[in-house]
């Protein structure tokens, strides 16, 4: 029970929850990507909180946050690449029309 951690961890949990809601409820690929970005942001907050309160001397915690940032960038880049390809093919990035994607 370490109350100092609570604000950060609760924020992280809230962002994680909103991200999950967004990722599942939105019908558009782009909004879905935003949901995923929020999930990753929630993860980052927890990481920094743990680094700050539990192991401030080891930089590995900070390094891991950098990795999460790269994951965010990569995920967004590839997500939009796929979105453009689908938008050109069938003119829509709605998740509903994703049923026809074979394989």
């Amino acid at each position: 029970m370490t109350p100092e951690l609570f604000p950060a961890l609760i924020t992280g949990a809230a962002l994680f929850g909103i991200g999950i809601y967004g990722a599942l409820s939105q019908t558009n690929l782009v909004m879905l990507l935003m949901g995923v970005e929020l999930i990753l942001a929630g993860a980052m907050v927890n990481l920094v909180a743990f680094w700050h309160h539990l192991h401030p001397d080891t930089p590995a915690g900070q390094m891991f946050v950098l990795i999460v940032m790269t994951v965010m960038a990569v995920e967004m880049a590839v997500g939009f690449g796929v979105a453009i390809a689908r938008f050109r093919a069938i003119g829509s990035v709605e998740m509903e029309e994703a049923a026809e994607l074979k394989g």
Partner: protein
Amino acid sequence: MISVQLFFISFFGLAAVWFAVVVFRTHSMMRSALALLFSQTALGAMFIGMQAEFLGVLQIMMMATEMSIMAIFMVMFMMDPGGLGKMDMTHQKRLSVIAGLVAFVAVVVVAVFADWGPLASSVPDAAQQIEDLGLELLGRSMLIFETAGLTILTAMIAATAVAVEPIKRNRD
């Protein structure tokens, strides 16, 4: 000192969560993209509040550019970017709300009841942190950092390859 820092962390935390809620509640796509931007900026400010200065500044810088590029994609792909038609772009609403709440409660329970071990007393000052981070990146976890760099490169190439218009092969 702790209370001021705590106040800043919780204030920016609240701002981040509020902006995150706005992301999915607003109809205008541009507003939702910039809401996500300011949510990430509030997060960056939170990192600075937690004395991880380098990470906070990096987060603020990176996220502004990234989310602006997301904004143009949103305007490009959305059917009604201005959000005046009040279109409801969601499906399976109940399921996703339940999933979101369950996730939130689970994480909070873990956060509150788990025993995180002894709290650290002091945090090295910013310049020292950056130096350690630098040495860490190019020392012990050089491999991880290089693979991260490489994945970004492959992601850039893959994304452009996917997005570029396919050469018109004469389909049989």
